[in-house]
């Protein structure tokens, strides 16, 4: 098996990297792929709680890299029965305890066993970022439609380029279609023009992401969540399927809402 190692990164914190990693990983697994997600945010681990696996951690990424445990021992199987595994970050160590070469070797080893190796990158552009990016071959960039997040994303595009990761694909997260309509939020076209990158997907702001995080169940498992549907489409695109970008605006009208409520609007799911 020759898997793909993809880093999910953003520069700015709090834009939804961890949520994106958990959901894309889950969605790829739901598509029948073998997936491992790695939390590389040493000292501030969170992917485990988003996936609801925090109680199952015995060993972590640093233990594996230091040879304190076998790789298998640090891989936690997801609860939903798919071929999805989590390698959690160490919580009581810091970013400098990772050797970038060792992380690269680990990913190369995982590529032999998995279709996808997804790395949740720490915020910022310091050592933790460099470690994760250095081990990846592709990148998914997450931003929100805000000036600060977009500025940081642009900086990250430059840094990725410098580390030989070309053409990162962009997820715009937490889009408020009503604000876009009013002219009070930048839309997809504005952001694509500013950053000059390819779009991987658009994710609407969705309260269900919050309840999903509360429960520790990624939102792709929530059949009624618009953000979950968006992540299913994103995973399909990552997996090489041609899926049209869905205009989020269409779904905010009264009729779309009604259809959603009475369950007629299955269009989003039929794509993925």
């Amino acid at each position, binding site marked *: 098996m020759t898997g793909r190692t993809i880093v999910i990164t953003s520069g700015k914190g709090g834009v939804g990297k961890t949520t994106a990693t958990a959901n894309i990983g889950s969605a790829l697994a739901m598509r029948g792929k073998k997936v491992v997600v790695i939390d590389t945010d040493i000292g501030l681990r969170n992917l485990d709680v988003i996936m609801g696996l925090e109680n199952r951690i015995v060993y972590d990424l640093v233990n594996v890299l230091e040879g304190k445990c076998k790789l298998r021992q640090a891989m936690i199987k997801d609860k939903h029965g798919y071929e999805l595994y989590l390698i959690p970050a160490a919580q009581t160590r810091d970013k400098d305890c990772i050797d970038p070469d060792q992380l690269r070797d680990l990913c190369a080893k995982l590529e032999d066993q998995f279709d996808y190796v997804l790395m949740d990158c720490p915020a910022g552009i310091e050592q933790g970022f460099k470690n994760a990016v250095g081990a990846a071959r592709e990148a998914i960039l997450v931003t929100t439609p*805000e000036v600060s997040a*977009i*500025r940081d994303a642009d900086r990250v595009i430059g840094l990725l380029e410098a580390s030989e990761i070309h053409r990162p694909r962009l997820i715009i997260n937490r889009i408020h279609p009503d604000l876009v309509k009013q*002219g009070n939020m*930048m*839309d997809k076209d*504005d952001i694509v023009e500013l950053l*000059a990158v390819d779009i991987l997907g658009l994710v609407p702001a969705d309260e269900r992401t919050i309840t999903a995080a509360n429960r520790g169940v990624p939102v792709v498992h929530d059949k009624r969540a618009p953000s979950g549907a968006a992540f299913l489409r994103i995973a399909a695109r990552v997996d090489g399927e041609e899926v049209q970008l869905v205009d989020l605006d269409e779904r905010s009208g009264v009729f779309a809402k009604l259809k959603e409520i009475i369950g007629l609007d299955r269009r989003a799911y039929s794509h993925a």
Partner: protein
Amino acid sequence: MLDLFRWLLGQVDSNGGREHSKDTARKRLSVVLIQDRLDLPSERMDDMKREIWEVVSRYLVVDDDFLEFEIRRLDELVVLVSNIQVKDTSELAPAR
């Protein structure tokens, strides 16, 4: 009546003709991103702009006000685009 209809459809801005905030955001960002990419502070940009204008005005009669000067990303390239209005084509080569 038509206005009301437009308003209902959300085609009229509710902020009394002021620029939409997303356009302000986009414009601010396009300037900030260029400066970040070039690592060039805005005073230096202004200096360059002024000097280029001075050079061009030695050869052509140009408008003092109409000067567009921006650095854009064009696919893989970063390009400097400047538009300077030539005011009077009958005086294309002024006496020096």
